[in-house]
């Protein structure tokens, strides 16, 4: 069994105990955005709480596979406390990271996302990883900070 090659322990830990995940509706956020993958039924809602140009907190809720949930959890940990511009840059870099036409060397992501590296070998799971990141970009686009 080499499933652990894709399901790194860090990733599994985020799946079993997701950070910044809410069970019910997320109240009083500055902006929220939903993302869905109808092909597998995965659905996440990402909410951001701003202070000026800083994302003080990102929360999410939803259902999905281990990779979708772990990626959302890692996203919140990585983005919390960053500027809106940096968060958008991270969204772009995540897209580039999973784009076969891009050179991985051109992408520099924080180590908090290292556990997603193995998923890049499985293009079928790209959407699972990017779902929460796309929702984050969507939330930022609607927020007063833009």
């Amino acid at each position, binding site marked *: 069994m080499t499933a652990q090659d894709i*399901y790194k322990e860090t990733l599994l830990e985020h799946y079993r105990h997701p950070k910044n995940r809410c069970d019910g509706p997320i109240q009083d956020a500055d902006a929220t955005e939903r993302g869905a993958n109808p092909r*597998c*039924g995965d659905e996440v809602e990402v909410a951001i709480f701003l202070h000026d140009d800083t994302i003080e907190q990102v929360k999410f809720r939803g259902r*999905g596979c281990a990779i979708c949930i772990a990626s959302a959890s890692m996203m919140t940990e990585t983005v919390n406390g960053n500027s809106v511009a940096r968060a958008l840059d991270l969204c772009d870099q995540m897209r580039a990271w999973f784009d076969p036409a891009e050179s991985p060397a051109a992408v520099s992501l924080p180590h908090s996302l290292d556990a997603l590296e193995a998923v890049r070998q499985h293009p079928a799971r790209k959407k699972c990883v990017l779902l929460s990141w796309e929702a984050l970009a969507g939330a930022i686009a609607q927020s007063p900070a833009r």
Partner: protein
Amino acid sequence: MSLAEPSGENWTPLDPGAVRRDFPIFSSATAHRLHYLDNAATTQKPGAVIDAITNSYTQHYAPIHRGLYPLAEQATGSYERARATLQRFIGAGSPDELVFTHSATDAINRVASGWLKPRLRRGDSVWVSRMEHHSNYLPWQRVCRETGAQLKVIELTQDGQLDLLGTPELFGERTRFIAVTHVSNVLGIENPVAALCARARHHDIPVLVDAAQSVSHLELDVEAMCCDFLAFSAHKMFGPTGIGLLYGRADRLRDMVPSQVGGGMVDVVGEGGEESLWAQSPARFEAGSPDMPGAVGFAAAAHYLVGLGRDRVRRHVATLTRRAAEQLSALADIRLLPHAELPSSGIVSFTHRALHPHDLAQVAGEAGVAIRAGHHCAQPLLGGLGLAATARASFSVYNDESDIQALVAAIVEAQKVFCA
């Protein structure tokens, strides 16, 4: 070549080990033995099919219906013999009732746009069932939207059957067409298509049967089934990918408009804006250079299946399906989709209480167990069941008990990984 099946007192169960030796993919060197349980999506190819295709390129390749030299005549003969083989395979009255298409999807689209659309008016009804694959749902939805007709859905009863009693309007005077699958690609349920077709014919309502999911293990007889159209693809019955078949009753095909025009399908081309005169079926519906190697491979697959004995195939697949359903339902967190216990059609769909089907399929894949996860191109059905995705194991002639055990072991492993 005859299509004689092993029968009578010579009947012995299928030997999946011997069958596996017919399929080169199972002898290629990989880390794991391949437990291929995605047969409802596509089947592996036996050497007999691969060789037939190769031979058609290496020994008798030339244009079809276009050349007067010996090689072209041989190639044309191969193509038409393939059609005749498939005619006998499905019990059609004439080879002219068989049209080679690119896929089952292509065949259904041609009937929707070429036969039904010119006849469909606002207020008419077209019926499909709740358990249709998107390929037997969307073509009808589209012609209805284009013409103002209504697409209606035969719902399922509690026990997963087509609710024909609860659908009295099905055979009503507004109904112009019924399209229904022979076997559900998610539930594995076999529909009583012969009875449905008989009733429909009594009301002069044409029926298309989607046989994509049944052709590999159920014997088809279009005359006995009484259908007007039948569609299936080669790749789900051990044949090549990229070719399918449309059966249409002779009088229905006479009234069908070719959805593509071009070389080989016309008798007299009108000058300028004048009307052209189409060839008769099947040439009328086969514009462009025919896929002779594909047709030859398709026919070789039919011969292969008949050689195995379709009754033996049906029993083998039914036994495995039942065994898999038993063993999976013994796992506490696995829930089978309704009626998966029916010993029918090689398909067991299931969900796990805690695990997403994608994660199950990924871990299974790492262990060499190929299963499908997703909505199986049947969103109307899964939506009706309140599900977004399921895992699906589907069985065929080369599978055996060890494949079921490998699947169960993979699920147990996935539980260890995710539920620790």
